């Protein structure tokens, strides 16, 4: 099933090839502009070499670079059992061979991304802002969307396309700056020598200049076009995995209410997030310059899947909502003839946590990954000790009894779990903090 989807990415592949063409043409033009007779070939070689080197770096280090840049910290099952369980549920639904690692990002912007060049090394990261806002079904929808990026090999694909975009940007920057700084001397030199070489050289120079300005823009538009397509596909796969499109739809709705940006994201990494992490910057010129389809449209399509959760249903809803007849889903996905029934709304938690409680839980989770120590005094007061507190003991601010501080990293997770799953009773006492 998923293998079929992977094989059938013809349209995205065409866009990918077009970007490659851009890179090669740019290399050729710059090469011929600098060394007229046969510098073009050398230019192509240099362009491809830059692309290869960048590709190798991102292939072997991309995961850790992306996780590092976003400040993501790995969490264990104890720290957030619900998040872990939801990821495991989607791992089972997608028949992933191994359990992906789970990371949390300390940011109020609700978002999530997936990384990992193959399913075995996959990782899913969610922000604290997301965990604080969504309920279980919605979290499942978001995780399913990220899991779909992994299953559809989008991470690998978008990494290579992103690297190509980066290579084009580097080449044209170097060329344009070179022209700018050497402008005076080279023009004088050229005016003398060009009398012999003729007009051809000047024309090539101008073409190279224009193309060096246009190529990054074109490549970026192509990259965004690929990205938008993959987002629709990931939404469709998420609906199929969870059998419950409403979960993802209402999560997207909650996410779209937020106006926070994720400062650690950039145009290259944006396609791996569930919604555009740069929404305040990217959306001005609307569709063409966005990595993600408009959220309102995605929600409408998901809510339009009234009769089932299969790829066919998504495609039908897409055509109905947008009025376009382009196929979003690869044809192998549409061959899938069995009906995929929707399921009923999932579990509603007993006494669904209030927004305040949810915020406090997420705050504690962030403290837990940052090695805070959680102490509970005999008087019921709960104290969170920051990692840089070095004294071995201190008097309880509530009752004055001496409290021993455990060493950083020692048995803090179990204590953290207690405070995370705090009951309403205990919350009353903990509100004294």
């Amino acid at each position, binding site marked *: *099933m998923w293998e*079929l989807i992977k094989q059938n990415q013809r349209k995205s592949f065409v866009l990918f090839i077009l970007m490659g063409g851009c890179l090669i043409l740019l290399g050729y033009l710059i090469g011929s502009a600098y060394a007229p007779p046969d510098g073009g070939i050398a230019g192509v070689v240099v362009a491809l070499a830059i692309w290869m080197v960048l590709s190798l770096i991102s292939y072997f280090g991309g995961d850790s670079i992306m996780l590092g840049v976003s400040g993501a910290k790995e969490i264990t099952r104890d720290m957030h*059992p*619900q998040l872990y*369980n*939801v990821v*495991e*549920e*989607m791992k*089972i*639904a*997608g*028949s992933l061979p191994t359990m992906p690692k789970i990371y949390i990002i300390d940011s109020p912007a609700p978002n999530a991304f997936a990384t990992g060049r193959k399913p075995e090394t996959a990782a899913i990261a969610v922000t604290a802002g997301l965990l604080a806002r969504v309920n*279980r079904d919605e979290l499942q929808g978001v995780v399913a969307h990220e899991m779909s990026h992994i299953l559809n090999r989008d991470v690998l694909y978008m990494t290579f396309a992103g690297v190509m975009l980066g290579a084009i940007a580097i080449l044209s920057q170097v060329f344009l700056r070179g022209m700018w700084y050497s402008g005076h001397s080279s023009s004088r030199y050229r005016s003398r020598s060009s009398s012999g070489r003729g007009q051809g050289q000047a024309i090539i120079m101008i073409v190279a200049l224009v193309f060096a300005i246009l190529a990054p823009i074109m490549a970026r538009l192509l990259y965004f076009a690929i990205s938008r397509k993959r987002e629709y596909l990931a939404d469709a796969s998420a609906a199929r995995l969870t*059998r419950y499109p409403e979960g993802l739809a209402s999560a997207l709705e909650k996410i779209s209410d937020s106006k926070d940006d994720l400062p650690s994201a950039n145009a290259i990494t944006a396609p791996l997030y569930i919604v555009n992490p740069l929404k305040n910057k990217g959306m001005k010129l609307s569709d063409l310059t966005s990595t993600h389809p408009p959220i309102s449209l995605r929600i409408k399509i998901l809510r339009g899947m009234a009769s089932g959760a299969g790829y066919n249903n998504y495609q039908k809803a897409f055509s109905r909502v947008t009025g376009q007849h382009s196929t979003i889903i690869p044809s192998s996905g549409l061959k*899938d003839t*069995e009906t995929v029934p929707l*399921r*009923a709304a*999932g*579990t*509603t*938690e*007993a*006494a*669904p946590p209030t927004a305040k409680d949810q915020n406090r839980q997420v705050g504690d989770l962030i403290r837990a990954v940052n090695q805070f120590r959680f102490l509970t005094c005999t008087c019921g007061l709960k104290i969170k000790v920051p990692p840089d507190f070095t004294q071995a003991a201190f008097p309880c601010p509530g009752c004055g009894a001496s409290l021993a501080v455990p060493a950083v990293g020692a048995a803090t997770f179990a204590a953290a779990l*207690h405070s995370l*799953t*705090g*009951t*309403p*009773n*205990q919350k009353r006492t903990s509100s004294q903090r």
Partner: protein
Amino acid sequence: MVFALLLLGIIVVLVFIVIGMYNALIQLRNQVKNAWSQIDVQLKRRHDLIPNLVETAKGYMMHERQTLENITAARSRAMQAESVGDKAKAEGELSGVMSKFFLVVENYPDLKANQNFLALQEELTSTENKIAFSRQAYNDQVLFYNNKIQMFPSNIIAGMFSFQQSEFFQVEDKAERDVPKVSFS
């Protein structure tokens, strides 16, 4: 001579194609088996969680001894069931008893506030979901495997080595299909 070599070449290529298809079918069949065992893993996990749940609830639910006994009985029936049909039936009953239990819990706010119970409740919710998702994944794998057996050209290989189609996991009555969603409120 040339003709013989050509024939040999064709035969060698054909043998490789057959080997490739055969291996692909074996791989798919193993994936189906693996998906099936995943369902068992999750069912067993549910059996393991239930005694804890009953133990935690006992202190709070003095007047619901019958409900708790029903859960324990349904669990042991499910664990003893041998054939696939019996198993499906017993597990369905267990799901039914569990959802009744969680309805009753609504009347015991103290229990709902118990930290242990909250953790168990998340585990059971998730396990019920995992049972449903592992069935779903199993059916996806079966669909893919059966398609491969039926479609040309791999159907020839499947016939030669007598690969059997796998059966979809079907839940008999509609009630059971809905039950695995435990509702807590």
